[in-house]
């Protein structure tokens, strides 16, 4: 028997429309975490790169 692996969006859609609570299967969780990581990594790295540059640029600023 083949188990269906739904994306988080599809699983939510199914649970709400059938009015039946459900838990993501381990495979669905794995898929979600991998997809989320791939989807957000670039934006987060961009934020962190800006912070890294900031540390260098700030060395000589003095406030009196």
């Amino acid at each position: 028997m083949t188990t269906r692996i739904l994306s988080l969006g599809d699983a939510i859609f199914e649970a709400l429309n059938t009015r039946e609570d459900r838990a993501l299967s381990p495979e669905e969780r794995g898929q979600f975490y991998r997809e989320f990581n791939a989807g957000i990594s670039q934006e987060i790295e961009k934020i962190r790169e800006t912070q890294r540059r900031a540390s260098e640029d700030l060395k000589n600023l003095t406030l009196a």
Partner: protein
Amino acid sequence: MDNAKRLHIVNVSSIDDIRNDVLNDILHTSWHAASDAPLSSPLEQTLIIALELGCKSILVQGQVQDPDYLAEYAAYYSKLFRNVDRYCHRLHFFKEAAAADQSALQFLDTVAQDSYLGFATIRPLPRCEVGVTILPPPKQAHFILSHDKFPVHIAGREFEVTGTPFMQQDNAVGACAQASIWMALRTLRKKVGNSALDPAQITSAATRFLALNRTMPNREGLSHSQMIEAVRSAGHAPLTIMFDEAPHEDEEKLEYVKRVKRLLYPYVESEIPVILGVFPETNEGHALLLIGHDWPQKKPEQYEKVRLRLAEGSLDIAHAVSWTDGFFVHNDNTGPYQPFVCRTVATEKPYYAIEDIRFAIPVLPNGVFMTAQEAEETSAKMLQYILSRLGDVLKVWSERIVFRTYLSDKHSFRKWVLESAMSDTLKTHYREKFLPQRVWITELSIADAYQDAMDAPPIRIGEIILDPTDDPKDAPFLSIHINLPALGVDLPGLLLDRDPNPDGKIDIKNLTDEVVYACYVRKAA
């Protein structure tokens, strides 16, 4: 000193009254001998605020052993050849006037608790008189969010003041950088439980590992690295946000200011004081303490957008910073609760403006590893996942939802849950859920009545709760709730519950007893 003179009460109705009947006796004699000698701006602004708040009398307390000034005295003034007084005066502001011939003690024994406004400490130093000062903000400063409640003891009576501690630099033990750090640490002392260093300790902590010059007198101020070290040594986890120099074209400048406001806004909403390094073109760098924001009326076309990218296209919702034109700062050079706005659109061009910020240091508590920018990115990404198949929701969401992110400790969050009108199922879920010490919360509300959130009917329709100790790349949500029926969608409410531990479950639950509840209105000072 004559004991009778340690406390005396003076009725006042104007700055001139205060100058003639109070200050002439206590300000540094040689500097203020001429009756038209100007008051320093911080002192004048402090007195203006007290009068605006309804001050009718001032109880003048002499020989005050102020711990912060005594530390400055020990570090520097005790070593001067000339005499410098060890003690300060303190002005306590009251809304009630004293009766004729009433002594200070008779006034104190009969005055109502809620007549007490706050106090200003007057150091025995010319030009930098204003020591520890705590007053509530004036009415026009709408949302002063970084504040606390402080007990005040006078001759056996106890009063209370809610506000953000203010202090002017003394220009010998510390400059603006130390004053801003002191104000931030003092505001957080009780809330976070960390130490609040005195000005001398701040200079000492800041220069412990990196001294660029002699450390006393410290008129040169502190470098960014030294400021970070001083804040860190007090037990906090200071974060640095760097900004490029503002562009020169007005249009680009406005876009730049929007970006700056958006990055700072979540920290202000989180009641976290933010130390700002400002560098106007015409002057040297200066430090300010960001403590609140304004609350202007806004129309939908003015909303700043959070763009959610979905398979079917994109969806724009409103960012809560849309309802902020400017901020409020404590500026040790000019006074407490000063507006801090965008110079490009201001009619009266301010000396320091949002365009001048080169860096910001939100004084984060320890254990918050995820920044506000990362939290917003994570919440937006989670919304994209949830909405990806809910086509009906998309039709009603566009431009109608407000997205606001703030950090909350779990006790405050649960207290808000307990007092909220949310459904019993949801209330039980949040009260029982295992949570870290603090959480990032992205609140979702209906935009139509957001402007009147304090008085309007409840408009909050959901929230995303994130674990601030986790990595944003690992989908670190703990709970997500969206009240779909409140949006007119024919579906039950959605509750996503995640156990963050390895192999932890992700549950999708239907909520059938949904209620719209009020958004989190912080108690501004």
